[in-house]
């Protein structure tokens, strides 16, 4: 044990905490060795900015006069789920307008969806709100057609059930035709490879055994402050291994996160459109990792060369849910711009922004160093690889 949460927070309050972003910490460990670096640094900050499906916001619109018990609601034409209460709704990032041409003119554009609604809300732009109902004695109104901004409504709470994937597939296309996926446009015959992680800066890659991240962990979320609410859906953390038993870094963990949308910023929450696939939300997340022990520091010092992604074919293996992959590649290789798959050298490109991930880790470092962001000790840590959680198959 090197230090406790309360010791770290006392140092933050007195302006004496030593905080480094994950990439800076990696360099320090290379220079000074792990023990010295772990003794020097109190907190390592991480960051990631990319498309994160399973995002959305709970909204409470306030009551109209006369009152309506909204049964169905639309924001800028995008349906929001209103089956929660009279004027509560959830706008999901991947929801699309009912009159969207979708993939009827393949590949569809998906220019505007729930993610864009959230971006418009957080940008304080006016949005059209329409809702219908059947009318009750206590809620007589049957329809409403009005305009709102985020400032006019009671609550806007970002609640993302699955974000910050610990690691992600490197997607390729083995087929002979171009395919359009949530991993972007994949050219035929291994024409390109797309990956989506900030690698050595990515929050959950730096805490593989969930020794610090848990329910209540305070985080950078969408430009403001948020919290880890729970483990994310499909949270199946594990440590990947090569056939000869070498660790290839973690994969499979996810976070459910929550925060007040009203204090977030459109720079860190952006509606996205994936041609041929759909729309979603790009989210910026940063998690501070307190160096409570040398073991935690060791994990936080994992570099791109230590962390690997599985290469997966998105023309057949992924859609068919077929097990196995085409090998593992390190983030150092992915970031170099080319990898070799099945003997062929192919160009790589990220879908997750490394410059913005670095900026998030920097902002979080600044907030902690300046005393405006204290660490929150989790109420309960998240399930770790040792808990052996795994995904279920949906029969049908």
């Amino acid at each position, binding site marked *: 044990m090197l230090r406790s949460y309360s010791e770290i927070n006392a140092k933050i309050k007195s302006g004496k905490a030593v905080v480094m972003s994950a990439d800076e910490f990696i360099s320090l460990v290379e220079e000074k060795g792990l023990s010295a670096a772990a003794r020097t640094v109190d907190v390592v900050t991480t960051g990631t*900015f990319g498309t994160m499906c399973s995002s959305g916001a709970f909204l409470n619109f306030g009551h109209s006069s006369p009152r309506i018990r909204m049964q169905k609601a639309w924001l800028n034409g995008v349906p929001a789920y209103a089956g929660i209460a009279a004027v509560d709704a959830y706008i999901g990032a991947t929801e699309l307008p009912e009159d969207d041409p979708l993939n009827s003119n393949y590949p569809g554009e998906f220019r505007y969806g729930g993610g864009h609604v959230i971006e418009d809300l957080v940008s304080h732009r006016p949005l059209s709100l329409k809702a219908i109902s059947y009318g009750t004695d206590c809620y007589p109104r049957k329809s409403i057609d009005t305009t709102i901004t985020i400032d006019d409504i009671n609550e806007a709470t970002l609640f993302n059930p699955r974000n910050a994937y610990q690691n992600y597939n490197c997607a390729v296309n083995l087929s002979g035709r171009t395919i359009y996926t949530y991993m*972007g446009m994949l050219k035929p015959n291994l024409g*390109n490879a797309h990956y989506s992680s900030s690698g050595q800066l990515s929050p959950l890659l730096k805490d593989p055994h969930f020794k610090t991240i848990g329910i209540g962990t305070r985080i950078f979320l969408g430009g403001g402050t948020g919290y880890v609410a729970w483990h994310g859906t499909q949270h199946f953390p594990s440590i990947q291994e090569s056939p000869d038993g070498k660790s290839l870094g973690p994969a499979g963990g996810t976070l459910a996160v929550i925060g007040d949308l009203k204090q977030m910023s459109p720079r860190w929450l952006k509606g996205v459109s994936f041609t041929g696939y759909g729309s979603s939300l*790009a989210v910026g997340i940063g998690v501070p990792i307190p160096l409570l022990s040398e073991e935690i520091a060791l994990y936080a010092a994992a570099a791109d060369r230590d962390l690997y992604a599985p290469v997966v074919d998105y023309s057949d293996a992924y859609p068919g849910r077929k097990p196995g992959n085409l090998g593992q590649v390190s983030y150092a290789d992915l970031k170099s711009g080319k990898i070799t798959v099945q003997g062929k050298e192919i160009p790589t*490109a*990220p879908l997750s922004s490394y410059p*913005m991930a670095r900026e998030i880790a920097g902002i979080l470092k600044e907030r902690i160093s300046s005393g405006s962001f204290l660490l929150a000790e989790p109420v309960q840590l998240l399930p770790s690889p040792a808990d052996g959680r795994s995904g279920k198959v949906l029969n049908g």
Partner: protein
Amino acid sequence: MSPKKIVLRFGPDITEKPIIYRLVKDYDLLINIVKANVNPQKEGTMVLEITGDHIEGGMNYLRGIGVQVQALSQEIVRDEDRCTMCGACTAICPTGALFIERPAMEVNFDGDKCVVCQLCLKICPVRAMEVRL
């Protein structure tokens, strides 16, 4: 007569063929190659300025052998504020006009290399790439 500006895009099978020679010889066209690029996947792009009486015939010949022909009357610009520097466009852009600066991993746009194929317009998830007429 002022020259007509066009963009050609073609796959690896065409890269080997003497298409410019055929345009000059068979269609009597005067050709200025403004930009030409063949990427490592052997996909080619070319911007040409063409003068002559048989431009349409030459273009039909190109389309017939599988070359995509497009008039060049537009320019592509990037909305710097909207671009998140994700990189999703960089393995798609056929000429390397959109590329990653390493090790910072920042995405740059070199308009001089752009051949206005417009692929990035639908690939960019935040729609930061725009056509300017």
